[in-house]
């Protein structure tokens, strides 16, 4: 288990290092989420509803995550580097876990800008909303990384990833918006947690079959 986690950590660290060098994904995610919130700010009527604004926050988070997931396997795809990782004697699901961890970090950093920006343009963020965002991030990264790997092997990858990801993200939206808007959010947070566990296990178990021909 320690070796497995060490492999995943080595791969996640590599992705973070690649981003620090290339600076392609995270700046784009931050710029996108802030731009989206600015657009939503002007799109909503003057007396905006807090519920509508929270819904738009979740839309912005989801599409920002999609942007990051779309770039998750770019380095591996361009030079067939997934072959090198697949050939290594580590468990292949460690590749998935490493990517999930790196994407999670990028998404967290984008949200660290997005949530204060939301407070500035719309209204305050409460504890349950932050908890829901964190739980949603886990599910988004777990499912999205698997789908990004699947899409990266195809020709129409830019089309394929949103088409595969968005339907599977509907429960995340339901849980996230629910937790952020109701008085007693525990049920929705539990729902998000259950989604995370269930889909993380599914993605972890099926990743090996996605990365081999």
């Amino acid at each position, binding site marked *: 288990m320690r070796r497995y986690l*060490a*492999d995943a950590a*080595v791969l996640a660290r590599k992705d973070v290092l690649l981003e620090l*060098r290339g600076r392609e994904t995270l700046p784009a995610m931050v710029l996108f989420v802030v731009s989206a919130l600015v657009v939503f700010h002007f799109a909503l009527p003057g007396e905006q509803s807090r519920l509508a604004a929270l819904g738009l926050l979740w839309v912005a988070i989801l599409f920002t995550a999609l942007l990051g997931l779309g770039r998750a396997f770019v380095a591996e795809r361009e*030079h067939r*580097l997934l072959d*090198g990782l697949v*050939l290594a004697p580590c468990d292949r699901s460690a590749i998935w876990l490493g990517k999930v961890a790196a994407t999670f970090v990028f998404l967290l950093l984008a949200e660290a800008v997005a949530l204060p920006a939301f407070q500035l343009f719309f209204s305050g963020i409460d504890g349950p909303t932050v908890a829901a965002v964190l739980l949603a991030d886990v599910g988004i990264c777990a499912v999205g990384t698997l789908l990004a790997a699947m899409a990266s092997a195809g020709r129409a990858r830019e089309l394929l990833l949103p088409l595969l990801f968005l339907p599977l993200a509907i429960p995340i939206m339901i849980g996230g918006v629910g937790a952020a808007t109701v008085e007693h959010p525990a049920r929705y947070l539990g729902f998000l947690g259950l989604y995370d566990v269930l889909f993380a296990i599914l993605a972890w178990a099926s990743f090996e079959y996605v990365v081999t021909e």
Partner: protein
Amino acid sequence: MAPKRIDAGGRAMIQARGLGKRFGDKRVLAELDFEVADGDFLVVTGPNGSGKTTLLRLCVGLAAPTSGELDIPDRSLIGYLGHDPLVYRELTALENLNLYGRLYRILQRRERIGMLLERFGLWDARNERTGSLSRGMLQRLGLCRTLLHEPALLVLDEPYSSLDAEGATLLDSELADLRPTRTLVVATHDPTRVARLASGRLALA
């Protein structure tokens, strides 16, 4: 049909029986029977599109056959160099080899990496991002990556491509050094280059 992994302690490193591979309607390999025994040096030849790369990808487990049976060793025993050196262009040569060294759990990683970089003339370029290296230097780095974990089975796809005369001579001597202790499968358009080392030849039509 996933290839069956065999113990490298056995006599045969690779065994193929009725091996076939299709991509959709296109048949790339059909009814191929061959065996690569421990210590063999098999040269795979054939014109462009004959399936050399596909066969080598099957032999390392990167692809699964669509028909027949294929037994290959565990992937920790395999070193594979394909058309790409499989290195991250934003990382330096040293960082790339360190990454693979950690994944292959190589003991005395620094010493091994340093020795390989010296041997392949890349020591001075060790801290350069590989995106700035020439194609020939990338090929040398790909060879370092392939040899890093001292694999029992080396599978090389056109290893001489992009190498200059000095690099090709270096590879000649490296293959000669490896020949007594390793099993090699090499696909090449120029079989004369490795003819003196080869123990067998598989010609694909």
